[in-house]
């Protein structure tokens, strides 16, 4: 069931991330610590099944996993009615760490009755890695946005040049001036121009 299972009495950490690249990177980071047994949830396996099979001490889980609800129930459903569900994160005195973890999209579950030692460094490692992935994703999104804007501006310029019989520089200056007059981005003005042209063609 669990991949990379290593027998022993070290702290067992289950990494549950639906993003395989990020999950692998986090596992690699944690593998560097010899005091940890790092396990991962195989693709397609329910989180609750993986926890039942692996019996980890701590689960580091991607907050976008919808099956996180099932993890809440694992002990409450399988043990006596007095058992409390798995929902302990970090010490009460370190709210900031947990809030940072939430902001980066990860949380930590303790599957034991008592909080194991050294959970904080695990969570910090996960936070750093998740933050890096988010930065990369944001940079990619920004690059895609810039490219898309450039495409719109180029298309609008070509359309303007054809309609108004102008040079490329004149067309660009027209969009630039209009953007300044209306306090908007050139891409927005270009998009509006293209939309109005399409509307004219349709009518």
């Amino acid at each position: 069931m669990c991949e990379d299972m290593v027998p022993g009495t070290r702290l067992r950490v289950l990494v549950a991330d639906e993003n395989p690249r990020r999950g692998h990177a986090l596992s690699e980071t944690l593998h560097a610590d010899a005091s940890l047994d790092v396990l991962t949830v195989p693709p397609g396996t329910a989180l609750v099944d993986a926890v039942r099979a692996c019996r980890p001490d701590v689960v580091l889980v991607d907050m976008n996993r919808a099956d996180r609800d099932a993890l809440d129930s694992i002990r409450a459903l399988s043990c006596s009615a007095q058992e409390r569900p798995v929902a302990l994160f970090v010490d009460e005195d370190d709210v900031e760490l947990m809030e940072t973890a939430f902001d980066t999209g990860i949380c930590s579950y303790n599957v034991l009755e008592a909080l194991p030692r050294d959970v904080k460094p695990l969570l910090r490692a996960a936070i750093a890695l998740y933050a890096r992935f988010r930065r990369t994703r944001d940079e990619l999104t920004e690059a895609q946005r810039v490219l898309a804007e450039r495409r719109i501006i180029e298309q609008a310029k070509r359309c303007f040049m054809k309609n108004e019989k102008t040079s490329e520089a004149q067309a660009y200056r027209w969009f630039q001036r209009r953007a300044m007059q209306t306090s908007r981005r050139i891409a927005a003005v270009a998009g509006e121009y293209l939309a109005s042209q399409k509307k004219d063609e349709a009518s």
Partner: protein
Amino acid sequence: MNTPLRIGVLKLADSAPVIMGRHQGIFARHGLETEIVVSPSWANIADGLAWNRLDAAVIFAPLAMMTALGRRGHDTGLRPLGRISRSGNTIMLRGANPVEGTWNAGSPGRQAFDLWAMSIGRKPRIAVVHMYSTHLLILRRFLKMIDVSMEDEIDLSVMPPTDMIHALAENAIDGGCVGPPWGTEAEQRGLAFRVGGSATVLPDHVEKIIVASGKLLSCDATGRRMSHALRDAIAFCQQPGRRADIARALAAPVADGGLTLPLAATEAILPGGDARECVTFAGGSLLPSDLDWIISDMTALGWVDNAEHQMLMRWIGPVPADPAPACARSL
């Protein structure tokens, strides 16, 4: 610059007052800037409240109470702002119904269960949406009503409502107790039949409530504005004449302010719809009588002890009505 109030919801029809509150500009009319956070799981809602990532959320009372008791690993100043909805949960089973319609209490229900379980060919796997849900309590009461032991005669599992449709189609589960519109959606797709639900077990029980986190509660004026806005949004959603508009808004993509709910099933379960188990939007302050049965069941299940039982009865009290000091945020 004001920070919007973050309100957590799941993809359920009883989130409609929050969705329509923004859609219809009701929150804005009450001077509230809001951001609706559509969460993938109830755990995200509960943890968001406990760890200051949500200012308010639509939630069922058992999970709200367990969160308020600090069962999410962190004490929180969570308080109820009011009711949102009543009823609407359905108990759905896959396969063929051995009898006509819903199952009756006592031995007729027991016989129907035995016949159905035999046709399934395994110990029935029944899902609920969360361990601490009204769904689990309704399911437990229903099974008790037909003399079936939830602890011994079924395998209980937990999954989000949106996943139940797929799980029924894949035979991964044999049934579930689920909120609107997912039970009706399963029925319309021919994946399951209805044997009971809110109307069968406990008609008009309180289903969803809205709770506020400590941050929202620290500003009484905003809490009151939120209560008033929700009162108006709930009144809007309860009008049968608005059913088609509300269903369309809820079926819209999340990026467009909706919840991507299935349109036909959603229209069927809204007030005035033709489903056999419709949701009722009902606002007002939460009363001890709303939660008596829930707290009593939670105590019977061992989730809370007698001391916590008393704490929960006090927890229901209204939001203080004193004039608020100037609030730092838009709260």
